[in-house]
C-alpha cells in the first residue's frame, strides 16, 4: 500500500518569498511545494499528500500557536511520516524543522525526519529527540542533502532498522542490538582480541561503546537543619511485605509511597511489616531490620531530639538494580510533586 507523507517547508522554500514574508502564517496545501516535488520523485512507494508552509519568523515568535495550528491541520489527515527541510545551516528554519518534527512525534506518535547542518542551533536542541540527517552548510547542496534525507525516509517507511553510522544522522544516545553474521570473525572474542592487536600496533580501531561526556549534576546548597523537612527515598526496594505496588525486583519501572505517620521504627518481615524485594543483594539483613536501608528509626530519634524540623510522613521506594537512568529520572519526576506539596527541602536517598 502506498504510504502517505506530509512535508514541511518555510516561506522561502515554499515559494512565498524571502525575509519580507517571514511572518507568513501556517498554511497547508494539497500536493507538493518546493523541495517536496523532488522528494516525491525519490520516495519509493509513498506519496506526499500535503505540504505545510510556515514563515520562520511566525514560527520563531509564536512557536506554540504555530505548532497548535499545524497540529490542527494534521488532525484529519492520514499520514505515515513527516519530512521537514532540508534546513542547511539556517538558524530559525532549523529550529522550526526541529519543533515541527518533535510536535508531530509527541502529539501524533508518527515518525519524522529532517536534515539540518550542525551549525544550526536546531541540531543541538533536537538531536536527542528526532532523526536529523547531517546536512550541508548551504542551499547549493540541496540535491545532495535531499537525496540523503529521502534515503533515510524510505528506510523509515519500510520499517528498516536505522543506524547513525550508516545513515548519517546525529546520534540520539539511543542504542540497539545488532546481530552479525554467525562467523568466528564476528564473535565478541575475535572482535576483542583483534581490537587489542590494533591497539598494540597503534592502528585505528572502532570502539563499540563510545563513552559520552559526563552529565554531572551540581551539588545542592546546604540546608539549615532547623528548617529541614526531610524525606526518605530509597532504591533499596523496601516495601510492605505484600508489595502492594508490585514493584519489580530488577529493572524497575514502578515505585511506591508508604505512610509512616506515627511510626517510630519500621517493623520487619517476620512481623508482617516491611521487607526488601531488591534482587541485587542478599536480603537477609534488610528483611530482619528494614531500618538498615530505610532509616525511619534513626530519623524519628533525631526528630524527637530536635536535630531537624520534621520528617515527611511518607517514604518512597523503588528498586535500583538494572533500573535505567531514564526510568529513574521519570520516577523521580513523578515523586517530586508529592515532596514539594509537603514543603520537603531535603532528601536522604539511601542506595544499596
Amino acid at each position, binding site marked *: 500500500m502506498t504510504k502517505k507523507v506530509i512535508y514541511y517547508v518555510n516561506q522561502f522554500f515554499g515559494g512565498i518569498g524571502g525575509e519580507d514574508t517571514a511572518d507568513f502564517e501556517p498554511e497547508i496545501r494539497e500536493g507538493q511545494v518546493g523541495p517536496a516535488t523532488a522528494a516525491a520523485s525519490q520516495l519509493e512507494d509513498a506519496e506526499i499528500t500535503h505540504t505545510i508552509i510556515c514563515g520562520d519568523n511566525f514560527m520563531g515568535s509564536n512557536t506554540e500557536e504555530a505548532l497548535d495550528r499545524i497540529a490542527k491541520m494534521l488532525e484529519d489527515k492520514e499520514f505515515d511520516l513527516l519530512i521537514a527541510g532540508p534546513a542547511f545551516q539556517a538558524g530559525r528554519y532549523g529550529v522550526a524543522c526541529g519543533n515541527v518534527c518533535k510536535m508531530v512525534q509527541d502529539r501524533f506518535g508518527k515518525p519524522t525526519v529532517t536534515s539540518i547542518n550542525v551549525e544550526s542551533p536546531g541540531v543541538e536542541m533536537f538531536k536527542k529527540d528526532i532523526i536529523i540527517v547531517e546536512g550541508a552548510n548551504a542551499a547549493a547542496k540541496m540535491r545532495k542533502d535531499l537525496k540523503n534525507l529521502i534515503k533515510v525516509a524510505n528506510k523509515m517507511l519500510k520499517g528498516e532498522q536505522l543506524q*547513525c553510522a550508516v545513515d548519517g544522522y546525529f546520534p540520539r544516545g539511543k542504542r540497539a542490538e545488532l546481530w552479525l553474521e554467525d562467523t568466528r570473525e564476528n564473535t565478541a572474542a575475535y572482535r576483542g582480541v583483534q581490537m587489542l592487536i590494533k*591497539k598494540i600496533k597503534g592502528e585505528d580501531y572502532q570502539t563499540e561503546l563510545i563513552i559520552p561526556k559526563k552529565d554531572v549534576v551540581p551539588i545542592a546548597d546546604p540546608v539549615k537543619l532547623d528548617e529541614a523537612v526531610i524525606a526518605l527515598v530509597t532504591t533499596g526496594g523496601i516495601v510492605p511485605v505484600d508489595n502492594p505496588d508490585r514493584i519489580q525486583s530488577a529493572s524497575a519501572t514502578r515505585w511506591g509511597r508508604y505512610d509512616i505517620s506515627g511510626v517510630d521504627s519500621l517493623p520487619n518481615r517476620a512481623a508482617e511489616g516491611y521487607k526488601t524485594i531488591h534482587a541485587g543483594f542478599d536480603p537477609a539483613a534488610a528483611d530482619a531490620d528494614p531500618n538498615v536501608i530505610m532509616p525511619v528509626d534513626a530519623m524519628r530519634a533525631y526528630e524527637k531530639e530536635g536535630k531537624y524540623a520534621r520528617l515527611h510522613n511518607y517514604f518512597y521506594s523503588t528498586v535500583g538494580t*538494572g533500573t535505567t537512568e531514564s526510568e529513574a529520572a521519570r520516577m523521580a519526576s513523578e515523586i517530586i510533586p508529592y515532596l514539594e506539596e509537603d514543603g520537603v527541602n531535603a532528601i536522604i536517598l539511601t542506595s544499596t
Partner: protein
Amino acid sequence: MKLTIGNLHVQDVCLGSENSFKDGILTIDKEAAIAYLKEEDDHITDLDIVIAHPGDDTRIVPVIETIEPRVRMDGRCLFPGVTGDLVPAGDGDLKAFKGCCVTVVGKEWGSFGDGVIDMGGEGAKQTYFSKLINICLVGDTDEEFERHEQQKMNHALRWAGHRFAEWIGQIAKDIEAEDTEVYEFDPITKREAAKNDLPNVVAVLQPQSQMEALGYNDLWYGWDMNKYLPSFVSPTEVFDGAMISGSFMPASSKWSTYEMQNFPILKELFAEDGKEFNFIGVIMSNLNVALDQKERSAIMVRNMALSLGADYALVTEEGYGNPDTDYVRCQVILEDAGIPVVGVSDESDGRDGFGQPLVVLNEKLTALVSTGNVGALSDLPACATVIGNLEAMNRDGMSGSWGYDEILGKSARDDGSIIMENNNWFCGNHISGFAVKTMVEV
C-alpha cells in the same frame, strides 16, 4: 602446562538402555543415569532426561546451568572440589563430546539467575546453546528452605548437572578422538626469546561473586569466589574445570560452566599467542560488592599485571550493574599504570535504548566490545514443546521476566507466548565471547 582436548563430534543423542558412542550417535542409558544421580544426592526428588535438538520448536525454562560432557583420561575428576577430590587442573588429556551440552532445568521452580533457551524460531538466535543438542536434566528437589526464595543456590540440581556431564564423559574414554585441540601455556619465565620480544598480554577475568551468603557464587576449585582474592592462573585451568558457574546474576550476563570450559576469549588469545603478542596468562579476579573489596581486587590486579610485565590487558566481567564498577575501575587502574586495555561486556540501555550503558563511565575506556542490551525486549510466539515450567517466569522472580505489568501483561502468557527482557535469555549476551551481536547507535 599442556592441555590436550580430544574431540568427539556428536551428531545425535539418544536415550536407551546402554551407554555408547557409535557413528556420531551418543546413546545414554537413561535409567542408569537417573539412578546414579539420585544415589549421589538424597535431596533430588524428581529427575528426568529429555533431548532437545537445534531447530526444534521447543522452549526450555528455567535453565539453571549448561556443561560440556568430558572425561579426564588420567582418572582425575572433571571439576576438582566439586565432583571429586581437590586435584590440580590445567594439564593432561581430556576427551570432550562436542556439539552437545548437559542443560540443567528446574521442573517446577526458577531462580533469579535462571534463563530461557529457545531451540527454534526467532528466539533461537538469542543463545548459543540453541546450536547444540541439549541433554536436558529436568528435576526437582526437597530444598524447601529456598523453595519460595528468589535467590536459590540450586545446589542439588547444579551438582547433579556436573556429575551427569562427567558420567556421560566416561563414554568417551576408550573412543579415539576425531580431532584434537592443544593448549600449551609455557612457564612465563622460560619462554623462547622470539616470544619474549613480543608485547605481553594478560587476560583479566571478573567472575561472579556478589552474594555475601555462600553457595550462590562461582567456585574456583570448589572455593566460593566471594571469599577470594585475585590470583594468577593458567588459562588451561579455566578450560579444565577449575571454575564452575554460580546461580546468581541475571541469566543473559552469566558465564555458564560450558562457557568457562570453552572460554572463547581465552581461545582467541591462544590463537594469536606467539604471533601478535606473548600471552602471559590470566589474572582471575572477582566482583564483590563492598567498595573496599572492589578497590582491593583492582589494586591486586594492577600490581600482578605490573609484576608480570603485562604491556596490554583484556578485561571482561560476568555481569552488569554493580559489577560495572569493578569492570570500569579495573580498566582505569590498569590504564593509569600504563597498561592499555580492551574491555568486553554487555550494556544496560533500558527497553528504549536511551539509558546509560554502564553504571559508571570513564573516558579512559577507549576500546570496548559490546555484546548486547540486557533491557531489550523479546516478544515471541508459543513453542510446541516446553521443557521445564513456563509459569516460573511469572512466579519466581527470574531476572527479566515478571508476573504483572499493566501495559505488557505477564511474561509467560496463557497461550504459551512470552514477553521478556534480554536479561532472561540463558547466557544470552555471551560475554565470554560467543556473542555474534554488538550494539550500535540508532
